[in-house]
């Protein structure tokens, strides 16, 4: 790893001690999503309105009459974050223009899981990105419907066991389709900012949140969120898995700024995917052949991404 890269990713920096996502919430032990939300909220600061989809975050943070949110927060439904955030942004825009309120640069942010983003919420999000509202969208990807009990989504990786893509006597692979590439779908909307992040690289994650906030127009941030409960792995290795997924090239960290690709961290040599897969019970049934298939696919995808970075 180049020194510059290392500094960007690991050099200690001053981070606010404010916790706008307050402790005491009900997330599972070792929840990568809660960790990511905490980092994201540190980067977002106070001048923000968060729109949350139905899902784990909403459930573990807002059990009436308690709340973990020290910033304005609204949850309505599962699939409409893109639309609700559009409405809030438009309300502020109109009311500022009509002199009803002052412009204090409030940042509008959408939070949703992978199901709420790449499946049921895709249409509302696509509409919001296409219309060009000024907002930041964070997809916390834990690769299945965890809140309802580990059902597969289009973001579940090939080979993963879930309760609706189980490993049986006849079907022995689990998830039989490849993970939907949601960041590329965002890129196809030609929005000014798309990035991937992992809370195991917290400074990188926070930098990306800040960039997404500052850029005028839609920004999409896809955040890898380890789920020990659903992935059948020990909670104490959440951070390790969030790092391994990047080091193996399965979930590369990159940014697409106005259509230009930048790798946030590059490795001269990727670790074998086996190291990542073997740590999680959801992949325990995979055969050598399956793992080879995944390895080939990861290398192909990584190469494709590197070509995009080169061809800026």
């Amino acid at each position, binding site marked *: 790893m180049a020194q510059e890269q290392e500094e960007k990713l690991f050099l200690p920096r001053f981070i606010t001690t404010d916790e706008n996502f307050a402790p005491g919430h009900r997330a599972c032990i070792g929840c990568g999503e809660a960790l990511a939300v905490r980092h994201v909220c540190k980067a977002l600061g106070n001048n923000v309105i968060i729109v949350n989809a139905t899902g784990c975050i909403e459930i573990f943070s807002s059990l009436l009459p308690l709340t973990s949110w020290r910033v304005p*927060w609204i949850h309505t439904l599962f699939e*409409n974050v893109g639309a609700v955030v*559009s*409405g809030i942004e438009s309300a502020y825009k109109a009311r500022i223009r009509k002199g009803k309120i002052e412009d204090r640069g409030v940042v509008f942010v959408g939070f949703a899981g992978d199901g709420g983003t790449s499946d049921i919420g895709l*249409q509302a999000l696509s509409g919001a990105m*296409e219309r060009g509202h000024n907002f930041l969208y964070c997809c916390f990807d834990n690769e299945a419907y965890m809140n309802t009990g580990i059902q597969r989504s289009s973001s579940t990786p090939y080979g993963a066991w879930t309760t609706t893509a189980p490993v049986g006597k006849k079907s022995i692979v689990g998830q039989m389709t490849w993970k939907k590439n949601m960041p590329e779908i965002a890129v196809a909307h030609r929005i000014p900012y798309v990035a991937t992040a992992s809370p195991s690289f917290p400074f990188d994650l926070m930098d990306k949140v800040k960039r997404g906030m500052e850029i005028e127009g839609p920004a999409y941030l896809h955040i890898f969120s380890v789920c020990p409960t659903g992935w059948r792995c020990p909670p104490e290795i959440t951070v390790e898995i969030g790092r391994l997924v990047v080091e193996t090239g399965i979930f590369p960290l990159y940014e697409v700024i106005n259509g230009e690709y930048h790798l946030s961290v590059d490795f001269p040599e990727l670790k074998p995917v086996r190291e990542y897969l073997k740590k999680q019970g959801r992949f325990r049934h995979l055969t050598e052949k399956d793992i080879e298939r995944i390895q080939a696919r990861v290398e192909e995808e990584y190469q494709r991404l590197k070509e995009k970075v080169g061809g800026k």
Partner: protein
Amino acid sequence: MTKRRIVGLEGSFAIAEAVRMANVDVISAYPITPQTHIVERLAEMIADGELDAEFICVESEHSAMSACVGASAAGARVFTCSASQGLELMHEVLYIPSSMRLPIVAVAANRALSAPLSVWCDHSDVMAIRDIGWIQIFAENNQQAFDLTVCAYRIAEDKEVLFPAMVHMDGFYLSHVTEGVMLPDEEEVAQFIPDYEYPFVLDPDNPVSMGCYGPPFIYPEAKKAQEVDFEKTKPKIQEVWNEFGDTFGRSYSPVEEYQMEDASIALLTMGSSGETAMLAADEMRAEGREVGLVRLRLWRPFPFKEFREAVKDVELLVVLDRALSFGMGGPVCSEVKSALYEKRKELNIVGFIGGLGGRDIPIDGFKYMVNRAVERVKAAEWGEEMGPEMIGVRE
């Protein structure tokens, strides 16, 4: 000195005028026949600088209502409109503003539901959204479409109300028909519905959490509070309509009567067919028959008291439903029966289903219903089962 003027307007344009005079901040809508003229007119008004609002051209009705929810929670005065399949698609979202107490105003240009596809009027879409917890009001003509939309903002935004309100306007019968509409002066309307401040707005200076998760230990209390407050909106609605009458000369009430003095038979309608039924009542009165008409203006919250009062001396109530609850009959008829069950066991109620998918109900149609209802009551006395009858349909 006010400048009131009578203008020839489609129902859709009358609605757009009301929305313009309400000086809304955000409009979020998706096109669907027969609602399109409303959104087109509003878009023109914005393009011409006659209305300063953000128009979010969303990608679905689900998002139309969702964006309204967001905008309303952020303190904006908002508007949307839809019909038929569009209301069905936004159905899930409709429960949110009534439960989160967001004073959104919407208009439905009532239309039949598929299949087969029909763009024409009936009330199937209304009946599918009966239980959403919105104040629901029926307009009979374009003047009422304008007036009731203006009033809807005043009602919904009242601090003691804070419920969303929907004005129902029959698709094509009103939305696409030009009538003379008395437009008040903009200033007058601005005074009648002044700018409002939503009390729990999404604002970083005063963070609130909206739409939290309600487990069994709190959900029933939340729903009871909602129902208690919803019932309390009735006097407020009447108050606003009275005040509108004092200011503009046209007042409304939850149940409106026509030729009901000493009537022994009453027709019951909702929406534009009320005007045809009036003509039928006139003709039957001229024939010496004691026929009157009751129109339900306020559909939700249901005006039990006013309704019972309106039909207290009637012996036969003839109910027209422009919708069908499969295997059950007419939804309005069953509601009316349940509203009267405890009080008027001796009252005969005969329901008819008609006007589905834009099939006209002429004056004779109402006369037929009255005559047929008299016959059926007699037959029922001999023990015949009295199920719902569909009128004006080829066998």
